[in-house]
Structure formats: C-alpha cells, structure tokens
C-alpha cells in the first residue's frame, strides 16, 4: 500500500511544479539548489548550497549569531556567554536548543540556564555600546566571578562600530580572566553556517591549547560536532567509555572551557557534524598534528562502523576486541527492536530537511526499519555536505563567504606532534582507512528522490502534496504546517521532547518514536462523521 508512491512520482516533475510558482529569477536561482535523483547513477549530481536565500521566500534558515552563539558556544557550561545587542537575540537563544549539560558536581559552574545580554537601548546605538559592554562585563564578573566571558555581536554592533575584541582585550587584562569576542553579527554569511566558522575560529584562537595537561588514558579522542541534543552526547560518551575510549573534549555538547583548552592533547578527532566543526578538525591537525576522521553514531550500523574506525586508528588489538564485544552486546536489543517495529513501519516514506548533517545521518535509521527517504536536504550546508569533500576545491567562494575569516594556521612551534607518521597514515589509508573523508548525502539518496537545499515553505507544501510522505522531519517552524496535513512531523534539530537518538540505545528510542508517530490512532480521526456521511436521516435506536 505504502512505499509504492516513491516510484509513481517523478522528481523532475516535482521540481518543475515547484519552480512554476516562483518569479522567473527566483525560479532560476532555486533550480540550482533542487536536484532530482533521477537515476541510480549519481556521479556528477550537484546541489547548489551555501548561497543567499531569496528575500521573501520563507526559509528555514537562521543567522550567523544563531550558528555561533546558539549552536557552537551555547552548550558550553562554564562560561558566561554575553550577547551584546538588543535583548531579543539573547532571549531567543536562551535554553531553546535542548543541548543538555551535566556538571560533575552541584557546585560546578553551569551557566546554561542563564541569559546574559547588554540589552542595548537606542542611546547605545546612537552613542556606541562599548561603555555598556564593559560595564556589563564588570557586573558579570562582580556577581559571578566566572572563569571566562565571551561576547557575541549582534547586527547593530558591527554597524555602529563597537569593537568587541578591543573591549574583550581590555577587560581580560583588567579582570584577569579569559574574555574574548565573536564578530558574529546576524547579517554575516547566508545562514548559521557562517556563525559556526566564526565560533570555531575564536575558540581555536582564544582557548584551544591553553592547557597542556595530558589526560591519563590510553585511547583519548575529541568528539567534534556533537551538541548533546536530547542527551546524544551522553550516550555516545558512555558507549566510548565502555569500549575504553576517553573523550578529552566534545565540541561542544556538555562541554567546558577547560576541555577546549586541553583538546589538543587528544590523539584523534572524530567528527560527527562535519558542517559545523570541520574547521576545528582541520586546524587541530595543522597546528597540533591530530588526524581526524568522519564518524556518525546515528544508526546502529554507523555507530558500529564508527567505533571500529576509532579502534582501527589506534591499531590496538585489545581495543579492537573490546569494541567488537561491545558492538555484539549492544546490537542485540537494537535488532530485537527492529524486529518488533519494522512490520509496522516497513514501506512507509519519510522526508527530512534539517541542519547540515542530520538530513543525511538519519537516513540510515529509517532504512533500518524499512522506510524510504523520498526527499532530503540541508538548511545551512555547503556543497561538500551533499557531494562529498572532494568537491571543496571546486566550490566558488562568493562575497558572502569571503567575508568570513579563514585563519592561517601553522604547526605549533613546540606542540606540533603528528600522532601518526606520514607512513603510518598512508599505510592505514591504503587499507581503506578514510582520514578526512566525507562523502556527503548524495550517495544515500535513492532513485526517484529529490534533494532540496534551503527548502522553502512553498516547496515543502508542494513536496507534501505530490509525494504524500508518511512522516516529515524538519524543525519547529515547519512542524505544525506539516502536521495540519495529518502527517506526523519529527523535529530533527531538537528532537521535539525526545532523545537521545544516538548510539545503539538512542536507535531504540528513535525506532519507538517513529513507530509511535506513524501508528498513533489520532491521525485516523481527521474527518468528522458528518463530513464522511453527510446525509441527514435519523435512525432511532435503543442502544
């Protein structure tokens, strides 16, 4: 009954249908970001990405500030993240992302529940906000005595010329704590992605490498691009620990400044969300000699293969054995759950438009329970996130990207320490070991599907009307418009109220969630009896 639909709809036609409703110039622009997968042969498929959103188009996207403060720095618990600007930016990014934080003790620093802002007023716009910013830093220091304060610039800050970096330097000197700023004004770049980059740069500049203490652990890695939404980071860390692998730092779920300061002492960087954090991975390799690999803990297969990849890197038989034992143990309940859930989900169809990696990573989870992904796309990805890192050299740097600083990183004079020699690296690579490799979303997409970058409301509607998916995954802004159609909508940014979905344990949660959403009986009651059966004769009865 279901699943058949996939093949009855031609993605090219859908694309046509979508474009028909745009003004011609808009249609031309959007055409580049809409890529039908019309055959099994996907080489050469391109997806336009990381380009401006057309004004008026009703996009999913947010801004540079959101990427910098909301995504990257938000999850760090022991720093005062101070928004310099009008109140809104700080307010909207206050506790709204479900990145969880678990301090080691009741008196350890945890500023996650706080919103700090300079709450700029019109006189600050007219006369400049630096004075207020300084005063705010002083007040924050006086009340909280934090170990660190960071400053996030909002749109007017750059425009009126407040030099947050100068203020940061001045106050750092005055107060003797680490203070630094981000020039992450909302208008920078074309999406949150610019903010990720800016955040990565500043953290790398101001924090990474400040503490050379080496953790006493045999296998120590950094987990990059994992933000602990719904507790994903917790279960991944538990899993790694179970295998004997320790995390020096996570960027940036449940993170601390101390971890960042110390992260250059890890021996491997495992990158979850390639889009948001690959800058740090690259810089850590260049400056400190730490190799990086792409991993994913979403879906049991990916989780297992990521564990194996990490173990393989360390080339330690004990670790390899332990990883295999853990996988075997953890896989059993996952398989049981799949067996339970699959009969109710098989043949159903999904769509996902979200983030810069999840619309890719989650496809495995759907596939595991027999579902087909009809259409997918990212909100703030670059072409490499679709097409793979091999495309990077081909990506044209446009005006919007050019404005985002690219740090010049050199190997550290004293601390550069290649974890593997070139020969070792090469040996591993020859065995198929994929350093710095990411193939992107396209290989996942089946024939008949459609890739859409930076999807708009209009496009969402068209997809739903034509594909009639059984479930739709996106963000909060799309949620209820989708559900009005009677189609359950799963948030893959914040997981609604669910999670964790990572690791083996999380997969079980996810399968249960999708099962629930597809099979909740509420969707069968959309029509009232008088709509189903409009004739008007009374039948009298005694029972």
């Amino acid at each position, binding site marked *: 009954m279901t699943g058949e639909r996939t093949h009855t709809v031609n993605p090219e036609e859908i694309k046509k249908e979508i474009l028909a409703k745009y003004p011609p110039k808009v249609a031309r622009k959007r055409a580049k970001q809409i890529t039908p997968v019309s055959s099994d042969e996907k080489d050469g498929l391109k997806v336009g990405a990381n380009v401006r959103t057309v004004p008026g188009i009703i996009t999913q996207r947010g801004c540079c500030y959101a990427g910098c403060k909301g995504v990257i720095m938000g999850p760090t618990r022991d720093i005062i993240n101070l928004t310099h600007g009008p109140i809104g930016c700080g307010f909207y990014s206050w506790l709204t992302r479900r990145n969880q934080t678990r301090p080691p003790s009741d008196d350890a620093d945890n500023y996650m529940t706080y919103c700090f802002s300079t709450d700029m007023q019109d006189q600050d716009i007219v006369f400049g906000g630096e004075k207020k910013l300084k005063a705010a830093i002083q007040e924050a220091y006086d009340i909280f005595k934090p170990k660190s304060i960071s400053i996030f610039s909002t*749109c007017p800050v750059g425009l009126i010329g407040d030099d947050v970096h100068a203020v940061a330097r001045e106050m750092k000197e005055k107060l003797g704590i680490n203070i630094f700023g981000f020039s992450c004004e909302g208008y920078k770049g074309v999406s949150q992605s610019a903010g990720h980059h800016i955040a990565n740069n500043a953290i790398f500049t101001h924090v990474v490498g400040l503490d050379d203490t080496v953790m006493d652990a045999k296998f120590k890695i950094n987990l990059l691009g994992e933000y602990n939404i719904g507790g994903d980071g917790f279960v991944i860390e538990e899993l790694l620990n179970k295998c004997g692998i320790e995390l020096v730092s996570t960027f940036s779920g449940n993170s601390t400044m101390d971890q960042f300061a110390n992260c250059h002492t890890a021996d491997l960087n495992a990158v979850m969300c390639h889009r948001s954090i690959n800058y740090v991975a690259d810089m850590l390799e260049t400056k400190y000699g730490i190799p990086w690999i792409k991993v994913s803990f979403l879906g049991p297969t990916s989780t297992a293969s990521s564990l194996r990849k990490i173990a393989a890197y360390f080339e330690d038989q004990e670790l390899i054995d332990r990883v295999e034992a853990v996988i075997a143990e953890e896989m059993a309940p996952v398989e049981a759950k799949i067996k339970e859930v699959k009969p109710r989900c098989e043949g159903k169809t999904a769509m996902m438009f979200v983030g810069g990696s999840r619309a890719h990573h989650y496809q495995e989870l759907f596939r595991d329970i027999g579902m087909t992904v009809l259409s997918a796309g990212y909100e703030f990805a670059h072409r490499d996130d679709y097409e793979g890192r091999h495309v990077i050299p081909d990506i044209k740097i446009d005006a919007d990207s050019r404005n985002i600083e690219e740090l010049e990183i050199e190997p550290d004079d004293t601390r550069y320490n290649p974890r593997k020699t070139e020969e070792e690296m090469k040996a591993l690579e020859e065995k198929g070991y994929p350093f710095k490799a990411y193939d992107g979303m396209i290989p996942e997409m089946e024939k008949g599907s459609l890739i859409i970058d930076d999807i708009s409301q209009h496009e969402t509607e068209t997809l739903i009307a034509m594909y009639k998916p059984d479930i739709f995954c996106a963000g909060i802004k799309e949620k209820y418009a989708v559900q009005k159609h009677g189609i359950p909508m799963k948030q893959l940014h914040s997981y609604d109220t669910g999670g964790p979905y990572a690791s083996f344990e999380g997969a079980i949660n996810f399968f249960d969630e999708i099962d629930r959403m597809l099979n909740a009986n509420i969707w069968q009651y959309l029509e009232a009896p008088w709509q189903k059966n409009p004739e008007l004769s009374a039948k009298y009865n005694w029972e």
Partner: protein
Amino acid sequence: MLLRHTPKEIKARKALAINPAKTCQPIGAMYAGLGIHGCLPHSHGSQGCCAYHRSTLTRHYREPIMAATSSFTEGASVFGGQANLLQAFLTIFTTYDPDIVAVHTTCLSETIGDDVNQIVKKAKADGTIPEGKYVIHTPTPSYVGSHVTGFSNMVKAMAVQLAEKTGKSNGKVNIVPGFVEPSDMVEMKRIAGMLGVETILFPDTSGILNGPLTGKFQMYPKGGVTIDELKRTGDSIGSIGLGAWASADAVRALDTQLKVPCQVHDLPIGLLATDRFVDALRTVAGVSVPDTVTQERGQLLDVISDMQPHLYGKKVAIAGDPDQVIALTEFLVTMGMKPVHIVTGTPGKAFTKRIKEVTARFGDDINVKGPGDLFLLHQWIKNEPVDLLICNTYGKYIARDEDIPFVRHGFPILDRIGHSYFPSVGYKGGLHLLEKILGALMDRTDRDAPEERFELVE
C-alpha cells in the same frame, strides 16, 4: 540547582540584563500582523530574526507561524535593504499570494536607516505590490521598548494606515485587545456579543493561532480581522484600548486622526478590570448589561469568596508584560492575596505607579521594578519567599529551585497547553486563572501535608 549562580545578595546592575522578562519589538509586530486575515508578516532584516520569532511563536502556539524575511546579507547591511524588500514583495505576492503584508523592521534595518515607507511607496508605484493588495509597515527597532512595543506599533500601523472615515457611523466599537491570547480575543468578542455591542476587534489572532487540525494546511486560515473591517474602524462610534502599553497608541491615533473617541483601560483580567471593561462597553455603546453577564460576574465572585481560606494572605511573585501584570496584580489583591515581588521587562514609568495604586492596601511593602528581569525577581524571592510564582515558562527554573507553586501566564509558554484555548480575560477567564492558582496552591498543600492533615474536603 538549575540557577545555581543566583546569589541572595542583590547588587545593583546598570548594564547587564540577566534572564530577561521581555524580548524584542519585532516578534510583537509579527504576532500582531498574524491577527489580520490573509496577512503575511514580513521581517525587514536579517533572516535570523524572522527564524527566531517564528520559532518562539510556534512553540508558544503549537501552530504554523508564517512570516517572510528580507534575508539581509552583509552587502545589504552596508548598501541598504531596499533591493531586498522589493525582491521580497515580488516573491511573496507571486508565491504566497497574501491579501496584505505587514512589514516590521529590525535593529539592523533601523540602524542603517532604511526608509520603509519610501520603499513601499516605490513598490506600489511600480506594481511590485499588486493592485488590490496591501502593505502596512511600522518601525520596530529592537533596542527600544519590548515585544509589547512592537505589538503596539504594528496595531497602530493597522489603524493609521488602513482606517478611513466616511462620515457615516457603523455603530460599532473598536476594541484593541492588547497583547493577549487568541482565546482572550474570542472571550472579549463573546462578552461584547452578550452586551449586544457590535465590535471590530483588532488584531484578532483567533482562528489563526488556535486553529483546528483538519488534514489540510491553510496558509491563511479563517479568522483575523479583515482589511475591510480595519478600514471601517474610522467609522466606529468609539474605541476601547485594553492595556496602556499595547493598545493605547492605536486607539489614540484613531482619535487624533479620525476623531474616533477612545478610552484606554486595563486588560480585563480579574473581577474589577473586567467590570471596567464591561462598563466601558456599556457606556460607549449605550446598552444595558444583560443578566447573563452579571451572572458570570457573580460566579467568579462566588468562587473567590468560597475559596478565601486558600487565597487570603498568600504571597505571590509575578513577572510578565506590564498590561498583564497590572491587571493580574489587581486581581490577586481583589482575591485577598499579596503580590510581593513584581517585575516587568518592558520599560514605562507608569508601571510602578499603577502597581502601587492597585497594591495600595499593602503600602510600601511591595517590591516592584519595571524594567527589571527574572534574575532580580529570583533574588527578591530568595530574600522573601513566596507561596506562588506567576510567570511565563522561564519561571519554572525559579519555581523548581525555590520549590514554589507555579502558574504559567504570559508570553511565552513553551511547555504547557491551554493558553490558546482558555481565556484569562473576562469573568470566565478569571475563573480559569483561579482554577489554576488554586490547583497549584492546593496541590502543594496536599503534597506537604502530614498524613493527619491530608484532607478530603478542602
């Protein structure tokens, strides 16, 4: 502790806002715009603003929030947003076909000084805004006022930019409901209806932000004040603005510009404020109050009197928007409760004055600050504990840390349902509020009662 760094000792702050009790203008303007039928709000600024506002409104209403943005880039920020706004109009009217677009600005477009009025004129002139379609607009710099100010500005824009005077009275009363829930707007209309007063209520988000699930998404749901109605507000016999912060500007503008006489009242939350609302409707429209209304009033009074033992003398901390907090505070005092810590995030000197008036029976024994923030409120509570906290969802962190019964009220409420469907205005709304307050207090009594005092009859 969730807010483990909040010290009991209060240090004066001049520059640092911590845990705000307000947000910025544009979201209020967006909310107001959604209260016009067939309207697509438009945020002239960075696309993040629009995303944030849509997200917050979506979480509060659990309904689709449609709005467009000018998607400023760095270039636009330097060279001005005219091209963006013109492109936006083109895209919007082609692709989404609204009857009207309600444009608000952001700190970005305000700081660079975009002349939206000029741009709209140009767009009208060159047909980018098609014939028969409307655009209204208002400046909503985020660095002035709060979300309430933005709401007020957009409502004023509706009146000023759409109202016309034909000279022939339509016999209706304009009601500007304030920054309230769709359910509140429904209730105001219901009350007016009971009095037999015909009204034009604007904005009106009912039917739009508390919409049904039907199996079909409608970009522009049924509901909202129509453009036609807005035009006719100039012919109304009078206007009632509910809430000085959110509604006074609009009704005064109609008074000044089109000689539609106005009254400004507190939001009709609680017994006395509802009394004044009903009485205002009665006198403006020259009608009698039917028994059904008096009956509802008596029901509220009845429950308040019945439940005095649970209410009297209970200390309350409140944070929220000024119009809401003023009316709520008066309601609590009416019921015999004692609001001891009162904060709004929205500026406005009249706040403290009005709070002092409604809490006069307690003399100076009240902490009140406007603008203040939840951090301060929390510190006050640490210094003088309360029996109840009334606040938007962010209050839950304080409530859990300090173990205080908590009633959610205001904007935003992100973790419970009900606000879209059950009014807090009017006598019925008072009953619903009271049900919640009593529930919170009595649940606590039950929780903490030693077994011998765990009561069947309360």
